[in-house]
């Protein structure tokens, strides 16, 4: 993206692009409303720019005990394929089925 954080996000091409990246279809009205709300929230969070952060502050990503969780690589019973596929919108009993990856352009 060529836009900088200072540019107003409600400008449509950016909102369009975010919706595309997020794989969310929004109609014209939703795009506008989403852009306005994003603008409002980004304006609010811009207060973080005022926080003085010294060089030695490392980011904190959350987990209190930052250690790798390792375990023995052992086979244990897992949920059956049949049960998992019960929640699939479409399956052939073995695989998930999805619409064509490429649209047929011949017709």
């Amino acid at each position: 993206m060529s836009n900088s954080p200072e540019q107003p996000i409600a400008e449509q091409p950016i909102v369009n692009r975010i919706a595309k990246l997020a794989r969310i279809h929004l109609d014209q009205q939703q795009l506008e409303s989403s852009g306005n709300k994003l603008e409002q929230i980004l304006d609010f969070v811009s207060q973080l720019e005022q926080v003085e952060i010294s060089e030695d502050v490392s980011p904190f990503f959350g987990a209190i005990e930052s250690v790798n969780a390792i375990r023995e690589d052992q086979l244990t019973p897992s949920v059956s394929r049949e049960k998992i596929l019960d929640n699939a919108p479409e399956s052939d009993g073995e695989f998930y089925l999805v619409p064509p990856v490429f649209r047929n352009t011949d017709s």
Partner: protein
Amino acid sequence: MTLSALNADVIVDKLNTGEVTATDCVQHFLDRIQSHNGDLNAFISISESAVEQAESIDQLRKAGKPLGCLAGLPIAIKDGICVAGQPTTAGSKMLEKFSPPYDATIVEKLKSAGAVIIGKTNMDEFAMGSSTENSFFGPTANPWATNRVPGGSSGGSAACVAGRLAPVAIGSDTGGSIRQPASFCGITGLKPTYGSVSRYGLIAFASSLDQIGPMTRTAKESALLMSVIAGFDPRDSTSSKIQVADFLKSLESPLSGLRIGVVREHLDEGLDSEVNTKITDSISVFKQLGANIEEIEMPHTKSAIAAYYIIAPCEASSNLARYDGVRYTFRAQADDLEEMYRNTRGQGFGDEVKQRIMLGTYALSSGYYEAYYLKASKVRRMIKQDYDEAFQKVDLILGPTTPTTAFKLGQHTQDPLAMYLADIYTVSANLAGIPAISVPVEPSSNGLPIGLQLQGRAYEESSLLQAAHQFQIATSWHTANPSEPWRTQS
């Protein structure tokens, strides 16, 4: 006294002595749900097998078989937590038909302790919200005044405990989603330390902030539930191996010498004056109980909401990528795969969820990461450091849970920022990973509950429960029930 008026520990005693059967107990609460859920909309679904489970517990008891510590106790579970074979929607159209193939670890633990799941409670979609108005299944009403919100996102769990449709419930808390509704509904709600309760089977919103916890009338009941649900789980890689404390045992210790910190700014700016008065009054109760009150500073917590509304949406945008129309029941019509993703997510998610995914996608997109996510994560470190320093001087931090009492349905739906600020005092604990509890204090003059928040050091839930329990011995605010029929206005 009817069963619904009793606390869970008393109900368990009566079940153990045979004074009440599990079947009667479960039926009693199912009847209350039948009569009152129409007004409250606290439950999204009711368990069809609850009575059957209760009957089998009664049979086991009759046969003298060993039973778990919650045998026959009804419990409500937030609908963002998986219960095998029961609808688990997370309040979303996207998961309207979803039936989990497995139990969440906490559900497995509750079941093996003999608890009977009576239903799944309403929530803001994917736990995104502070009022339960973002549910695909309609808003939940606050039993103290049904024109008001119960808070959120665990609003259904809070409303059903306050309205006595279930003795106890389970919620989840990403930025205040247990404590804020507990405060609005006049109950006790504990957000445990990040890692002390397994998140396996919790539908993820923001994985570094999400935590499951109890929502009950008393601290003692929360301690009882914590003694069942806390502990290491190999299926959650962030789960802690620290020895689980004896939550019930430590409740009875007196508070003499306990050092409680109060952040002066949290009692000034933006705080409703009545909430201020009641919280200040409660400080005197803790003094009488032998605690020493000290003023402390938490200079970076004022940036907590801003940091949270970057970090949580970033994590959400990644977590919710899985809802693509391939695996989880809902799929919108489309001619090709890409369009299927876009239409499914456009139609399956509600407005607030789409908004937060958009925000997170933007903040994580190329060129923006440092300005938003990285910066917010550094501010998060500074907030954690504020806590580390504070906890060198004091044992607990006391303040209001929320800046106001429950607001009216529809009051903030058009103003996301006003809604976000309902969590101003609660999000910091999630950012730092520490435990925090909300307990009821004296209600407002118009009869709405007010919550007091206590925050503690990581893995020191037992101190929070102890302080809350001692406060509840000295006060009776937690015993108040909303009048029936529910007030419709306040």
